[in-house]
């Protein structure tokens, strides 16, 4: 490590976030990202990493996609964030573009936040207003963000620390893939909404069993609860379709979009709301105010992001990338069957499962040392989040597989204590 980096890390600990800065050093990942381009990150010491973390799909199209840079620059010559109180050209244009590609034409309105958490809060507030009920059901180990309501719907790790966990029984959590538990939670007809990540990301992408998500949706209908699809990580073609929930045959009442929609260039997120649920938008349109939510520059970038991901070439690419990586990963798995025990996959949403309760951490570290950046699942560290971008090149896909094979081998030796002499 360069002296410049050592000195920088000290400053980072001192002025920014001592815990986070140090944790990465302890995990053997001394990454300080400097330059970035396409799916490459360059550490401040110059080392290149292929990005398979993508910040949960934020960099779905890669870092600083040239068309997004261009449209942001061009947009900045005409727009700024805009005045959030008034009808605005870019906000409505994006709302129309969202409605045009929504899973169902019912999702007509778009309400904006500046990030995914805020958009989740909008969705939950909307559900409460529409149903005049307070309870929210979510999944144990689900993850929806860190704002007021979103954090309560997620794992207590992030709420208790700030004494912000639910204390009045309004937020109920049930196990994933368990329809009986879900029915028990909904039976009292006092639930406003069920909020579901179509595939729970931070929980390591456990895949919904066949029929689970449509089953949840039917239960919602039976017990007068709304279904909120959290498509923050799974949307925008990552599943091979525009929205992952449609792959499972679910038409949500409210859908939350974030991360990738920003193109990684200008923060923006939104909740798509059906006519039936959007009563507050008529009753008191000022009900949710967000100065930076739906910033018009963000809208300009988001419209270009939507246009790019809907090109026919992207659909084909996703299929090639998914099939190719799967075939390669299966070969690696066959070589290390006692350590690399599972592949969870839906399109480019993938989790690699290892036979050790912290197994993904050494894999992450060895991948890092071998030029690939992929992160373990915070809420299930047996699983490595493996998130290739929708525009990954054939050459980089091959590079990824080559490096994964090396890293899995090293991690297995480390975990199983059979490190070979070098």
């Amino acid at each position, binding site marked *: 490590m360069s002296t410049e980096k050592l000195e920088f890390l000290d400053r980072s600990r001192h002025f920014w976030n001592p815990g986070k800065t140090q944790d990465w050093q302890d995990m053997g990942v001394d990454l300080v990202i400097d330059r970035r381009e396409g799916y490459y990150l360059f550490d401040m010491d110059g080392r290149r990493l292929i990005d398979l973390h993508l910040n949960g799909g934020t960099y779905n199209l890669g870092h600083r*996609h*040239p*068309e997004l*840079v*261009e*449209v942001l620059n*061009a*947009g900045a010559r*005409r727009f700024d964030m805009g005045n959030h109180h008034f009808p605005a*050209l*870019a906000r409505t*244009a994006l709302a*129309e*573009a969202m*409605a*045009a590609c929504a899973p169902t034409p019912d999702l007509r309105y778009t309400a904006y936040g500046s990030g995914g958490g805020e958009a989740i809060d909008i969705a939950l507030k909307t559900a409460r207003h529409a149903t005049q009920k307070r309870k929210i059901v979510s999944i144990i180990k689900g993850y929806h963000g860190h704002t007021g309501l979103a954090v309560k719907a997620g794992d207590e790790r992030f709420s208790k620390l700030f004494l912000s966990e639910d204390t009045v029984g309004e937020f109920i959590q049930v196990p994933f893939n368990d329809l009986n538990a879900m029915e028990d939670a909904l039976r009292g007809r006092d639930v406003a909404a069920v909020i579901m990540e179509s595939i729970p990301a931070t929980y390591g992408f456990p*895949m*919904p*069993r*066949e*029929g*689970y*998500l449509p089953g949840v949706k039917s239960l919602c209908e039976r017990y007068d609860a709304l279904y909120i699809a959290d498509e923050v990580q799974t949307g925008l073609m990552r599943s*091979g379709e525009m929205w992952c929930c449609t*792959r*499972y*045959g679910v038409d949500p009442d409210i859908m939350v979009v974030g991360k990738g929609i920003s193109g990684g260039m200008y923060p923006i997120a939104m909740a798509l709301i059906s006519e039936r649920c959007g009563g507050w938008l008529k009753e008191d349109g000022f009900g949710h105010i967000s100065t930076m939510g739906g910033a018009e520059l963000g809208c*300009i970038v988001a*419209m*270009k992001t939507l*246009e*790019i991901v809907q*090109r026919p*070439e*992207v659909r*084909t*690419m996703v*299929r*090639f*990338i*998914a*099939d*190719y*990586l*799967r*075939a390669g990963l*299966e*070969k690696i*798995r*066959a*070589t290390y*069957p006692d350590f690399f025990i599972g*592949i969870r*996959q*839906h*399109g480019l949403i993938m989790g690699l499962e290892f036979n050790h309760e912290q197994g993904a951490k050494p894999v992450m570290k060895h991948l890092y040392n071998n030029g690939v950046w992929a992160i373990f699942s915070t809420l299930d560290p047996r699983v490595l989040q493996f998130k290739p971008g929708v*525009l990954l*090149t*054939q*050459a980089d896909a091959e590079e990824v597989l080559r490096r994964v094979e090396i890293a899995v081998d090293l991690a297995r030796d480390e975990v199983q204590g059979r490190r070979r002499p070098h």
Partner: protein
Amino acid sequence: MEPQIRTLIDISGSQAALEGQADLVLERAQWASTVYQRFGRGQVQDIVDAVARRAHERAEHYAERAVEETGFGVVAHKKLKNEMTALPLVDYYRDHDYINPRVDTARKIVEIPRPAGVVFALLPSTNPVATLNYKVILALMTHNAIVLSPHPAARACCVDAARELSEAATAAGAPDGLVQVIERPTIPLVEVFMSSPKTRLILATGGNAMVRAAYSSSNPAIGVGPGNAPVLVDDSADINLAAKRIVESKSFDNSILCTNESVCITLPDADRRLRQAFSASRAHVCSPEEVERLRRLLFHPQGFNIECIGRDATWIAQEAGIRVPQNTLILVAPITQIGVEEPLSREKLCPVLSYLVARNLDQAIGQARAVLRLAGKGHSAAVHSMDESVTMAFASAVECYRVVVNAPCSQGAAGIGTGLPPTYTIGTGYFGRSTVGENIGPGHLVHWTRMAYRNDEPFGDYEGRGRAFEGALPEAPSDGVPGSPRAVTPASPGRPASAALPDREALRRMIAEELRDLLKK
């Protein structure tokens, strides 16, 4: 109210947008080619056959569409060309293998085909669909993906034809994206495609500017320049047959093939008979005044009048104010000079043949060289003669790489009815500032990795040791989606397959357990 897509900030003309578009198309092609290279020869041949069948079936439709859209050429002839670039092309190369390694035990060399991968192909307006068929089939024969760039004047018919061939390919099992077409080609966009590092080879058929741009792109390119074929008829030739063949060639698709004869050069002994023979073959030999009218119609100060490209002889005669019989197939324009001062000695993609009488054979050959010096270097020429000393002298002197003998040049130089490889891309070689001097064929889309052994040591045994072709990629599972395929994990390579089998004792136990279960029921 329906939602509309409204572009507030339009960046479509920016370099970033052009590069973004090209990059996506070319990367999809790269993926498609990578997967396609897993296909064995049988699968490749099935795909090629399916595409050729579709091209053949649709030959007439796209001949009509091309004539309708461009105004160039003759439907019946375009149909023939569209067909020639379908099934006969595939049959011509059926025994050529560009997929499997070849073993040369004598030289102790093994050659493994390595396709270019992503071929970028420019299509001309003159022979749009025939060239399209031809380039697509060449690419598919050789494990390549292809991106087609139509000429703007023939855009619609090419886009539709390309889509049809792409559909036929995928229906026959080809990976998606193996055949792509640029739907809205513009010069800046085409330049971006040509200079992209993801383009591995450019096949440029078209105008000189486009071909030069292809060569300047920094990518490997096979460019094809314009023609301007001289044809020599000496008095040893069967004059009537020569006239008939030249008329047949000049009237074929109204001279739109760049291999068509431009200037007929003959000798005093044959002059009168040849004129009579032309007249007898439905050619109109023009008077000096009519020649002047033709000159004014065909050549503007800026060059050839594109309105006349591929028009038939009677249309041209009428426009020029020349009275000819309705069945006239070509116009013969006697001239006295070759060179910059005589526009009629340049390339004419219409059924007008310039005609010059040289004093003797040496002068005739000198004039033929002058024709090609003016335009069409490296392209084609023809000679009609029964005297091999004449044909040899002519062919060794003219600066071009195809000289057809006693045959129509339009068809013959393109490999129709001659032993030359059938092609719609004529290599103009070093004379024509190109890399390739042959008729372009599938072989030009592949390079070979050559394994070589020492001469004085034994060669390895490669008999029956082909490349492994795994075929299409298995579809990755979409976990939890009804009907999604299940993953197949290959057997662990670290362990021999037999070790995974239960041993005899374990087997006996299993059988015993099964029996017990059966007895319980």
